[in-house]
C-alpha cells in the first residue's frame, strides 16, 4: 500500500465530512478540497461562549463536527433562555455572516465541541457563486423550520425562530413594500429628484419603453453622483442610474432579498410579479420586520418612560406567541420567553414606582407565584405576586411605603392588561406583603404544621421566583425552606396527597374524563387532567430532592440526572409536559383567533390520530408519576386520608 503525496490525508478527512453536510454536499470534490484549505478546526470546551450577544457578529460560519452548541437569549439577570440547539453536521452563524450586524444570541458549547470554521468571505463567495448552495440553504431551512412534525415534538428538537427564522419562512410578498416610483429614460435628474421629494421615497426606477426596469436612482446616487460631482440637473437620469436593477419575485423567500442586498451591498430591491414591478423592498423594511422578534419587544419595554406607553407592551408580548408557535418553537421555550418579557415589564413598572415614591426605606424583593413563578404562563395571565422586605426598626414607614408601591404596581399591571388575581394572591394584599421574618414564620407554619387545607393555599407559594429588587431576601427565605423541608414528612405527604387528586384519563372516549354537561360538554380539561398532575408531581419530587428550580421542565430534567434514580419516568414526564403545554397553547391560540373566551378545554374530536396516541401516552406518563408518588409516600398518604 502506497501513499500518494499529492493528496493530503487531512484534506481528505475534512472533505469526507463535508460531503455529508448540507449545503456543502452539493459542491464538487475539487471545490470542497479548495474550501477545506481555507478552514480551521476549532475546539471549544464545554460552556465556552463562542459568540456573545451584543458583540460584533462572528466573522465565520461554523459547522459542528463533534459535540453541540445552544443558541440562547440572555435575560436581564444573566440567565439564558435556550432558543435552539445545533449538533453534529449542523451549522451556525450563517445569518451573522450575512448581515454583519451585532450578534443577537449567545452561542455556547453544551459539551466539548469541535467545529470547522469557514471564513465569512468564503461563505459569501459560495452563496453568490453557487446557485445550488444558496437555494439549498433556503429550501432546507424552510422545510426544516416549517414542517413541525410530531416526531420533532417528541424528540424535543423543536426550534424557535428569531429574525433568522422569519427570513426563511416568509416570502417577499408577506412584507408590505411600497409601490415603486417609475420614470422614463429621458427623465431629467431634476424631475427625478422632484419625484423622490414629492413621494418621500428613497429610490426611483428607470423603465424602458416595454415597461421593464433598466436602472435605479437612489438618494445615495443624488448625493454621490449629482451633488458631489456638480452634475447639471437637466442631464438625463440614465447618467446617474445604477444598472442592472436587482429584482426578486414576490413569491420568493425573504432570505433571497436579504442575500441580494448583502452580496451586492445595496439597499433597494425591486419586487416583481412575473416580471412586472410591483414594489420596492428596502433594508429598512427588513429592519422593521426584525421588530417582531422577542429581542425587540425587550427593547421596546426598556425604552418606555410611562405606564401608559408600557401598556402597549402586553400586546406585543402576546403577539409573539402565535409567531413563535408558527415558527415551530418548543412550548417550554415559548412560555419562558413570555415569562422573561413579563419579568422585564415588572422591573420597569417598579422603576416607575420608585421614581414616583422615592427610594424604598428598606430593601425589598418582588416575587412572582404559581405559573408565573414556574415560567409557564400561556396566553391567559393574571397577577400572581408577593413582596418581601427587609426587617427593620421602623416597620410603620416600611408598611406605608410598600402599600403605596404595590398599589402602584397593581394598577400599572392592570393598565398593561394583566387582570387582578381572583384569589387575591397579590402584593397589594397586606397578607402577601410582609417583612422577611413574617414570611419565614408563615412558611415554617405551612411546612411544619401541615394541614390538608392550609397546604392547598401554600402550593402557589412553593413556586415562588424573585423578579426584581434584592434577590438575597428571597434567597434567605428559600434557604430556610429547603432546610425545613428536609424533614417535613407530613408536609410532603400532604403535598403528595394533593398532587394525586386529579387522575389523568387513561384511554380515549370511554375512559376519557370529559365534561358531562354544560358549555364544555364532551371536552377535556387539558390543565386539570394534563399539565396540572405533571406540574404537581414534579413539585413533590423536586421539593423532596431539595431542587431549587421552579420551572417544571427544569425540575424534571434535574431529577432525571440524579444518580440514584431511574431517569426514564422523568424524561417521559418532560416530554408529556412539553406536548400537553403545546396542545394548550395551540388550543388557546385558536380561541384567540376565533375571539372566544380563553380556556383549557379541548375537544378530542379535533385531534389527529397521531396526536391522540401522543396524548394518551402523555396521560400515561402523568399517571405513572402519580403511581410513583403514591408508592413513595404511601404510608403517609394513608394516614392523611384516615384523619
Amino acid at each position, binding site marked *: 500500500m502506497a501513499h500518494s*503525496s499529492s493528496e493530503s490525508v487531512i484534506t481528505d478527512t*475534512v472533505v469526507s465530512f463535508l460531503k455529508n453536510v448540507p449545503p456543502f454536499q452539493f459542491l464538487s470534490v475539487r471545490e470542497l478540497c479548495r474550501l477545506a484549505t481555507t478552514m*480551521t478546526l476549532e475546539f471549544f470546551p464545554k460552556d465556552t461562549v463562542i459568540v456573545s450577544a451584543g458583540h460584533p457578529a462572528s466573522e465565520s460560519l461554523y459547522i459542528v463536527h463533534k459535540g453541540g452548541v445552544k443558541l440562547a437569549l440572555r435575560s436581564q439577570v444573566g440567565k439564558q433562555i435556550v432558543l435552539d440547539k445545533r449538533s453534529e453536521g449542523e451549522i451556525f452563524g450563517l445569518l451573522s455572516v450575512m448581515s454583519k450586524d451585532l450578534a443577537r444570541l449567545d452561542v455556547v458549547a453544551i459539551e*466539548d465541541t469541535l467545529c470547522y470554521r469557514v471564513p465569512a468571505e468564503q461563505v459569501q463567495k459560495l452563496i453568490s457563486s453557487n446557485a445550488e448552495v444558496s437555494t439549498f440553504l433556503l429550501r432546507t431551512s424552510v422545510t426544516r423550520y416549517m414542517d413541525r412534525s410530531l416526531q420533532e415534538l417528541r424528540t424535543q428538537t423543536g426550534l424557535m425562530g428569531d429574525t433568522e427564522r422569519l427570513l426563511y419562512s416568509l416570502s417577499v410578498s408577506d412584507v408590505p413594500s411600497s409601490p415603486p416610483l417609475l420614470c422614463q429614460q429621458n427623465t431629467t435628474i431634476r424631475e427625478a429628484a422632484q419625484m423622490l421629494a414629492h413621494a418621500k421615497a428613497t429610490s426611483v426606477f428607470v423603465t424602458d419603453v416595454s415597461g421593464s426596469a433598466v436602472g435605479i436612482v437612489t438618494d445615495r446616487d443624488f448625493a454621490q453622483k449629482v451633488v458631489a460631482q456638480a452634475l447639471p440637473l437637466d442631464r438625463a437620469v440614465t447618467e446617474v442610474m445604477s444598472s442592472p436593477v436587482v429584482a426578486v419575485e414576490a413569491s420568493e423567500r425573504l432570505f433571497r432579498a436579504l442575500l441580494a442586498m448583502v452580496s451586492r451591498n445595496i439597499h433597494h430591491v425591486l419586487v416583481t410579479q412575473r416580471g412586472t414591478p410591483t414594489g420596492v423592498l428596502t433594508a429598512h423594511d427588513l429592519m422593521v420586520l426584525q421588530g417582531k422578534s422577542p429581542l425587540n419587544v425587550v427593547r421596546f419595554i426598556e425604552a418606555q418612560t410611562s405606564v401608559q406607553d408600557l401598556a402597549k407592551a402586553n400586546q406585543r408580548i402576546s403577539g409573539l406567541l402565535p409567531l413563535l408557535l408558527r415558527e415551530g418553537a418548543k412550548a417550554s421555550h415559548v412560555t419562558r420567553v413570555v415569562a422573561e418579557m413579563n419579568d422585564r415589564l415588572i422591573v420597569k413598572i417598579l422603576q416607575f414606582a420608585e421614581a414616583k415614591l422615592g427610594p424604598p426605606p428598606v430593601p425589598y424583593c418582588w416575587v412572582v407565584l404559581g405559573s408565573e413563578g414556574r415560567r409557564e404562563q400561556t396566553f391567559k395571565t393574571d397577577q400572581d405576586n408577593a413582596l418581601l422586605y427587609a426587617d427593620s426598626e421602623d416597620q410603620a414607614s416600611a408598611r406605608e411605603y410598600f402599600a403605596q408601591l404595590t398599589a402602584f404596581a397593581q394598577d400599572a399591571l392592570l393598565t398593561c392588561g394583566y387582570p387582578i388575581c381572583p384569589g387575591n394572591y397579590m402584593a397589594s394584599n397586606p397578607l402577601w406583603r410582609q417583612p422577611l421574618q413574617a414570611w419565614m414564620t408563615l412558611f415554617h407554619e405551612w411546612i411544619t404544621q401541615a394541614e390538608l387545607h392550609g397546604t392547598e393555599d401554600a402550593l402557589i407559594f412553593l413556586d415562588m421566583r424573585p423578579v426584581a429588587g434584592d434577590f438575597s431576601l428571597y434567597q434567605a427565605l428559600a434557604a430556610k425552606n429547603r432546610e425545613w423541608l428536609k424533614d417535613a414528612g407530613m408536609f410532603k405527604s400532604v403535598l403528595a396527597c394533593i398532587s394525586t387528586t386529579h387522575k389523568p384519563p387513561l384511554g380515549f372516549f370511554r375512559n376519557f374524563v370529559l365534561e358531562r354537561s354544560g358549555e364544555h360538554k364532551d371536552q377535556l380539561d387539558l390543565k386539570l387532567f394534563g399539565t396540572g398532575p405533571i406540574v404537581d408531581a414534579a413539585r413533590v419530587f423536586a421539593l423532596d430532592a431539595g431542587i431549587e428550580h421552579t420551572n417544571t421542565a427544569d425540575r424534571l430534567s434535574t431529577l432525571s440526572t440524579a444518580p440514584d434514580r431511574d431517569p426514564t419516568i422523568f424524561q417521559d414526564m418532560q416530554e408529556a409536559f412539553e406536548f400537553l403545554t403545546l396542545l394548550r397553547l395551540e388550543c388557546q391560540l385558536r380561541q384567540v383567533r376565533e375571539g372566544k373566551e380563553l380556556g383549557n378545554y379541548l375537544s378530542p374530536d379535533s385531534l389527529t390520530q397521531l396526536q391522540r396516541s401522543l396524548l394518551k401516552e402523555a396521560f400515561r406518563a402523568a399517571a405513572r408519576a402519580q403511581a410513583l408518588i403514591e408508592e413513595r409516600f404511601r404510608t403517609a398518604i394513608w394516614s392523611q386520608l384516615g384523619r
Partner: protein
Amino acid sequence: MPGWWKHESQSSEALSQDSALDSLRYVVLDTELTSLDSRTNRLLSVGAIAMQGASIQLGNQFYRVLNPSVSIPPESVVIHRLRVEDVAGGEPPRQCLDDLCQFIEGAVLVGHFVDIDLNILRKEMGQTGRKLNNPAIDTARVHHWILRHGPYSEDLSMQLEKMDLPTLAKFYSLEAQDAHHALSDAFLTARIWQKMLYALKAKGVRNLRKLLSIGGA
C-alpha cells in the same frame, strides 16, 4: 548569505518567553524514519500542520516524502508502509528541508516524543549545514504533567506508563486513523495539542516560558 540563514535567525528571535500561548504559531510535526537506530537511520517523510493559537489551520499543512537513497529495512516498511519504490519519486532531502525550514519559521514545534523528530531533523539538516533552533514541545511530557496535575485517578500510574499516540487520542476522545503516516499522525497530534492547550490554560499555564518548563524538549 544562504537562504536558510534568514529562517534560522528569525525563528529564534521572534519568540519571547513571555508570549501568551494563544499568540503563538505552532507547527505540529511527525516524521517517519528508515529505522530507530539513530546512528544509521534516515528521514523518509515529514508531515506537519500549522496552528495559530488553538486554531488548526487546515490549509496550512506540509507533507513530503524524501528519497534517502538507502535501502529501507523490511521491518520498518511494515510500520510506515513506505517502500523503496514509494520513496524513489521522493525529493532529495536538501530541497525538502529548505521548504520545511520555511514552514516552521517563527513557530514553536510540537510533536509526540518530539526528541526523535528533532534528532533526525538535526542530523539531516546538519549534513547540509543547517541548524534547527525552534523551541519544541513534547506532547508526551505535557501529558505526563497534565495527568500529575489533574484530579486523582486510581489508575494514574498505569496511565503514566502508557504514552503512545493512540492511547493519548483515546484519552482526549479523538479517533485515530491512518497511523504511522507522518501527516495523519501530525494532524492527530495537533488535535491532541489543541485540547491540551485548553487544559494547560485551565491549570494556569500562560506563557511560553512556563510551557517550555513543562514540556520543552
